[in-house]
């Protein structure tokens, strides 16, 4: 009986969550329903309610921005997992405890390196005037092309996704008993098959978690597309910033924010359901 009653220990965290997340989000949602008069700063206190701010998001151009954000984020998150998993496996299974600690420290340090420093480092190296820029142009890659800029933005996202995913997967892989793999091999499975049929399924929850970390980080990225996107490859976050900070149309910015939030929640929910179902089967 006692176990079903909420513990008072939840109270501080709950209040904090209510004050710092639920209430601001509720305010944002209400703002998204306000009428905006062009030329003013935000909506008036007595502005009437309207659905226009959401209706204008049904345009093809918004779908284009959304698709661009999701596409580049998906690309970066998938590549991030593909690169991070073998690294995490190698660190967890092959390295001595001393080297493992060093590797762990290296990835943690990477997480703390300023996003601006990394982004400008990429821009200076691979941008139109960087040393690799001229090499790429020599082999026929247009460094001012839209495709190249999208790849550069994805590379900027990978700077965060790889260390984040590696650290997440490290814990997952370490918690899988290596003797299970050995048992599969004793029973006749080749190494690759034992790995794919035993280790991988047991790591799927961790893989999903690190994919979701990477993906949610990517779709809400702001600085990376702003700098590497050259104003031509823009994410939804950049649109939100423009609406709030540049043209002061708070209701429209709030509507885009609510849509982005709902989309992120939906993706997390659907992917979690799918992975859980496949694991249960």
């Amino acid at each position, binding site marked *: 009986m006692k176990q079903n009653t909420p513990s008072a220990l939840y109270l501080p965290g709950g209040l904090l969550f209510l004050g710092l997340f639920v209430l601001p989000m509720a305010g944002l949602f209400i703002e998204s329903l306000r009428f905006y008069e062009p*030329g003013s*700063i935000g909506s008036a206190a007595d502005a009437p309610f309207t659905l226009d701010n959401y209706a204008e998001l049904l345009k093809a151009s918004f779908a284009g921005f959304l698709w661009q954000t999701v596409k580049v984020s998906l690309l970066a998150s998938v590549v991030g997992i593909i690169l991070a998993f073998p690294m995490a496996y190698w660190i967890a299974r092959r390295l001595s405890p001393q080297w493992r600690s060093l590797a762990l420290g290296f990835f943690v340090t990477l997480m703390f390196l300023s996003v601006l420093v990394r982004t400008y480092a990429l821009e200076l190296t691979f941008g139109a005037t960087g040393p690799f820029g001229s090499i790429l142009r020599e082999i026929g890659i*247009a460094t001012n092309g839209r495709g190249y800029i999208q790849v550069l933005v994805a590379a900027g996202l990978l700077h965060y996704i790889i260390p984040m995913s590696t650290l997440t997967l490290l814990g997952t892989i370490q918690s899988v008993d290596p003797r299970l793999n050995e048992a599969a091999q004793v029973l006749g499975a080749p190494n690759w098959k034992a790995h794919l049929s035993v280790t991988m399924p047991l790591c799927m929850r961790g893989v999903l978690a690190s994919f979701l970390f990477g993906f949610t980080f990517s779709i809400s990225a702001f600085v990376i597309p702003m700098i590497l996107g050259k*104003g031509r490859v823009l994410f939804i976050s950049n649109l939100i910033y423009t609406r709030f*900070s*540049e*043209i*002061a149309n708070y209701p429209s910015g709030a509507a885009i924010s609510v849509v982005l939030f709902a989309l992120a929640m939906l993706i997390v929910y659907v992917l979690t359901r799918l992975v859980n179902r496949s694991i249960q089967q």
Partner: protein
Amino acid sequence: MTMLTRRQAMQTAAASLALSSVGFMSRAAGTVELTAVEWGGGVIDAMKEIAAKQDKVTFNWVLHQGGSGAILPKIKATWPNSEFDYVAGWEGSFNGMLKEDWLVPVTVDMIPNLADIPPKIIVKNANGDWMAVPRAVGGIYFAYRDDICPVKITSIDDLFDPSLKGKICWPGPTQSMMLQLVALSLHAGGDENNLEPGWELMKKLAQSGNIGRIAVTDTDFTTSLTSGETVCGFYSEPQLTDVAKAFPVTRLTKQEGMPVFLYQSGFAVFQNRPNLQATLDFINFAISPEMSELYAEVAGEAPLNTKAKTPDALKHLSFTPEEFDKYVYVPDFNVVLTQQDAWAKRWEDEIAPLL
């Protein structure tokens, strides 16, 4: 060896503290700290030099991030508790502040050096009150780097030259109040009230592939041109001055068919601040003939004080009445301001996918 007792040590420390406090308090009593918002680059350098030439006020400088309109939501968020004593701006951002009724009206009695500023250029509210203090005039126009631009640009049509592929730095939809679109529109027979021809031309320019970078901040523009990533663009004077410090730049301010927009850079004084008199006194000092000349030299904007001399480096921004009629276009800023939201959205709809 002289020994110091604990009591003596305490007394010495207390005396030292009291003496240093007297010095600090006498300095603090004569100095007021103001919080002001300025542009970066040459403008903030100029204002720091001006501030250093007086000792009545010290500054907590805040820089504009993005366009000058970006500060407006931040002010609105804390209003009526303004965090800033003055905000540097231009007609576009001043109009937004006027609409919100944030500003202190100014007069010659309050700022005596205003008597030397042409009244025609001063921003006024519906009652005709002066609502901002102009300090200089800047220009927004087309320019290119002589040393690396593959073509001699003499007309907007030249921007479509295939040799400029990826070489144009174009202002983003929230930069320069979209006057770049008005410039295209003027070329194609429209204006700010009829922007359709401008949009059509903008689509063609975006489709041409000649735009290499969309500048969303002033720094984007300067960095792109100085690094050689792009070679030409449409931007404002302080940024072009920065580029011209290191590279030869042709400024198309007196080229038929290449419209020039002049704007006034100035001070908007905010209500509900404790140091109004000190702010007004500093602004009066900053627009004096000597300080106007200093500002022009460092910031690259021509002085508006009629008693100040325009530096030779800014002669391209000084127009005879005939030249003014021929090259300078003065848009209706009320139209420009109220259309920002619609124009930015249309940019997202029609132009961004083509870039």
